[in-house]
């Protein structure tokens, strides 16, 4: 449940409005926001303070939907996620090649 939310907008001419803003007294499980305007290459951000259940370490993935028809929302991986996936695969590949070379006696 979100208990607090704050918007990050490009400038003051861009507005992000909550249908109902989450507060500690009125936590919400669904955040309804309206972005005005939302033209190409523009970005908004909503920083949500989410209260997790007791002994829950990580938050569940947030499902973002839109009522607009014919639009597909795509999740963009962060730079760190891309870096970790690439470097992790490379390191594992090098390690496996190393082991394979040792087992075949070529090293």
């Amino acid at each position, binding site marked *: 449940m979100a208990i607090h939310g704050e918007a990050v907008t490009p400038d003051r001419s861009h507005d992000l409005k909550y249908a109902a803003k989450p507060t500690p007294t009125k936590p919400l499980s669904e955040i309804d926001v309206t972005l005005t305007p939302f033209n*190409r290459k523009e970005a908004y951000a909503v920083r949500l303070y989410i209260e997790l259940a007791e002994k829950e370490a990580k938050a569940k993935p*947030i499902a973002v939907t839109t009522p607009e028809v014919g639009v597909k929302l795509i999740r963009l991986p962060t730079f760190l996620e891309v870096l970790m996936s690439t470097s992790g695969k490379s390191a594992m590949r090098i390690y496996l090649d190393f082991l394979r070379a040792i087992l075949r006696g070529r090293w």
Partner: protein
Amino acid sequence: MNDAPLLRLNHHTIGGGFELGRAAHESRTGNPECVRYLWGVRLVSEGVLPTCFASTGLYLIQELKIGPVEIVCNGTRYLQDKPDEWDRPCEQSHAWLQSVGTPDVAPQVGQVDLLRLGLRATGFLVICTVLALASWKWIGRGKNGATGVPVNLRKFRQASPGNPCKFHSSGLGNLGNCRRHSGSILCLLSKNTRSALLRPTRTSSLEKGHTLNRLLLALACITLLVGAEPAPAPQQAAPWPQWVTWIIALGFGGVGGACLTAIVVWWRGQKQPIYYRIDSGFSFNQVPETSRFQAVVAILHPESKDPYPCDNLIIVDVDFINRSGKDYPTSGRQSPSLMTTWRFMAKL
């Protein structure tokens, strides 16, 4: 600050206390309703250096004007505030935070130290495994033969072809070679023959293997010394006395390992301990990644004096980026210059 709190920022949101503090700070001018919620900040750490939190606390108090700040580090409560001490003098907190940052306040040995030791031991075992594999493969494979037979052994075979390889050596590779070529590791050679056989030459692969051993073990020593985390103080560079490290370096690494160890020790001594950076302000970047970090923020219920009864709190950023190259909404004949509106629902 009461023992029952609150809001907890998980460790993966390092800087959460700062973020929430900043949010409260901003809300003091923008949204006065939020001011009543934030009551104080408690920073709880296990293994994280107190100075990291001290800097954070300093930042919260001095820059964001948020207090009281309580720091619990490795189970030790450094600042005990009472609920009525909302207007705690910044000077007092500042003085206390500086006292926390003195080098004689060292973090207690806890799980993080054991974790650090485990990481170092794991690294050491990995390097030892590589060392064993390298020795097994490289000792006995020199320039003079690809069959894995040492140079001196080859000469000995040529000198006495009828004598089987009854060879004993301390080298792991020689054991493997003898096992492969003769099936026996018993040493039935005469003393002179054995000494001549085991005497290394500069071109022998045996010496190459020893050089490699020394090099890899020196690397292992460096790994043990450097570790994954900056030492809080020079005398805590390793979880064991420094003379043990020197014996390891001298015994296994020889002169080269000792020199490298000396360089590493000198380099670590030159690094400024983290304790002295307390006056540099906010320093969350110095928090080691392996350390647990929790920031507990007490929030008051707006209508009552009781803390808000929530347990875990995390901060999640949801970004909305228009990467389609189109303005929205696309339906109709609207011009891109028109005010467009887009609606999202985020379900938690």
